């Protein structure tokens, strides 16, 4: 069931075109992410859905209702702010119960609801504490409990994890996914962290310059980016020049340094036309051939240009004849596998199936 529907939403701040022709449908119970670099309009879009910004042109419908002129206090949405916006003059319990003032509940029912909400986010027994005495992760949980206690149709999260340190952030990511499955509420997450978006979302909209660049599930987005911009933003990618010589069900393409290849049409998600084309290859789809190793995959001579050791993985930059920029590839550090030195001559194995033809 479609819960949120945006059609042709445009917004200007003075001369600045903040949102461009946004068309979007978000399903009931979905974990949806808006991903993009800072200034791409993702927060503006979220605030427009929340009702803090009005739409210029276009329409937002939530649960079938047009939201034009409906204030944030009357929308079935609640928000977790980037700064958490915990009321400093209230206790934890008063913060969580803030939105219940108008609720048709007795005092005991409210107290119980606050207790349950705190329990749900793992802060049982914290109710009497001063909001100022909490750590960043705890404030985050209070903000979540405060929003979820009102049982909104949609929970909006504005970069909720960006202020936390890495360990707590990863822990909160898992907790948020669990929580979302538990309560079944639609979550819309704004983030600039592609890894966070990939880990947490059912679907991701990648935004650039106020418009949506691509909208897909995480795997499709990673494996089949439609454009160089999306490919650059999500994960690591080697970019090569190429030329399409034949189109159809199977596409013939000449790739810089790698030679003639044949690829499936689904490897060109952004469409294809004869002529020059950008080609992407993920580092993990390339591999080094260590001494004595053989493969049935295609191979090309290469020299180690740079080695970056990450513990579980080693990243190599490889110089290949005919390619101006070194190719980056990553190898798992399995038992018995050496880390090669700079200058070692070796071979790189690759596969036609891992090429992606990128639209301009």
């Amino acid at each position, binding site marked *: 069931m479609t819960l949120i529907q945006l059609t042709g939403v445009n917004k200007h701040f003075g001369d600045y075109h903040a949102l461009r022709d946004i068309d979007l449908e978000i399903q009931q119970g979905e974990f949806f992410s808006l991903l993009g670099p800072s200034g791409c309009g993702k927060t503006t879009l979220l605030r427009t859905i*929340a009702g*803090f910004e009005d739409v210029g042109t276009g329409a937002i419908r939530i649960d079938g209702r047009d939201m034009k002129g409906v*204030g*944030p*206090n*009357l929308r079935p*949405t*609640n*928000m977790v*702010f*980037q*700064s958490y*916006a915990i*009321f*400093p*003059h209230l206790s934890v319990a008063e913060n969580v119960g*803030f*939105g219940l*003032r*108008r609720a048709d509940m007795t005092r005991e029912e409210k107290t119980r609801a606050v207790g349950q909400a705190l329990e749900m986010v793992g802060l049982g027994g914290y109710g009497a504490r*001063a909001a*100022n*005495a909490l750590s960043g992760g705890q404030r985050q949980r209070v903000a979540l409990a*405060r*929003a979820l206690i*009102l049982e909104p149709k949609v929970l909006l999260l504005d970069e909720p994890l960006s202020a936390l340190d890495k360990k707590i952030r990863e822990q909160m990511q898992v907790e948020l996914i669990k929580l979302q499955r538990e309560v079944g509420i639609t979550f819309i997450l704004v983030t600039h962290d592609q890894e966070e978006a990939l880990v947490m979302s059912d679907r991701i909209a990648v935004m650039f310059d106020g418009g949506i660049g691509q909208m897909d599930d995480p795997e499709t987005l990673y494996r089949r980016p439609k454009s160089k911009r999306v490919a650059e933003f999500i994960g690591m990618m080697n970019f090569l020049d190429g030329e399409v010589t034949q189109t159809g069900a199977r596409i013939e393409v000449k790739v810089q340094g790698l030679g003639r290849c044949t690829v499936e049409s689904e490897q060109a998600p952004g469409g294809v036309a004869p002529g020059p084309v950008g080609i992407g290859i993920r580092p993990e789809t390339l591999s080094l051939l260590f001494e004595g190793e053989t493969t049935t995959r295609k191979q090309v001579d290469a020299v180690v240009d740079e080695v970056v050791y990450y513990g579980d993985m080693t990243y190599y930059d490889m110089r290949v004849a005919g390619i101006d920029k070194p190719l980056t590839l990553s190898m798992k550090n399995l038992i018995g596998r050496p880390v090669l030195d700079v200058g070692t001559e070796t071979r790189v194995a690759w596969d036609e199936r891992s090429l992606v033809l990128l639209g301009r």
Partner: protein
Amino acid sequence: MFRKRLTDSGRRGLILVSPPFLYGVLLLAVPLATVLLFSFWTQDYLTIDTSFTFANYSEALADPLYMQLLRGSLLIAGAVTVATVLLAFPIAYFVSFHVQPSRKSLWLFLITIPFWTSYLIRVFLWKVILGYNGVLNSSLTGLGLIDEPLSFILYNANAVVITLAHAFAPFAILPIFVALEKIDRSLLEASLDLGETRLTTFLRVTLPLAMPGVVAAVLIVFIPTIGDYVTPRLVGGPDGLMIANMIQTQFLKLNNAPMGATLAILAMLSVTAVSLAFIWLNRRWLRGPR
């Protein structure tokens, strides 16, 4: 080594604070102690009897004239405070919430303009405005709104309240403005998001968070107002006189410095009591980040 460094920085700190500290002792503590001392002495015609006694206090507390003056002064100071803060809050709110950030300093600067003229001149100006044939009365009669000049606006307590409220307005606006500026605007959005309207958001979030500024404004206006004697003398008339006028009279006209000192101490104690009571009533809003 740590201990040595600590004493070093301690010594440096002492050297740094000693000039203002000396200044404070000489100009604040010594005069205050002198006044306190005088209040326990008595005037014996031309000489001062320096034997320790509570006679002045029992006389002052028993005399209805002094007590009525003190009560009246507290009432006038209270009225001035209420009027000033009630007028200052909307101005501070407007500058903080509705003026573009780049214009705020300009607004604050404009608010201080009345201070460019001397306090005395401003008081005289109010005399001109509020007088029997003053600006206000002649405008109103000219417009035909009143037949006879209003007389309740000059030479009484009302005039004192109006004049002092104007004089102290910037002192009230600034602390309230600072408190409002410190409020994280996302808190107001959070309140709207949680279902409150603009009005209830103001009552549940903005006002409680602005209270430290309001309390500061109240104290800044109330404390000096009670000791003011220029304004009551010039625009107050007979019923607008305040305790400070009596203290001045005791010292300069009646040549009774000990009684003047006693009244000063009593006035100070009442201000302190009222201020502490006010702070205690508002203690809930004054808890800083814990």
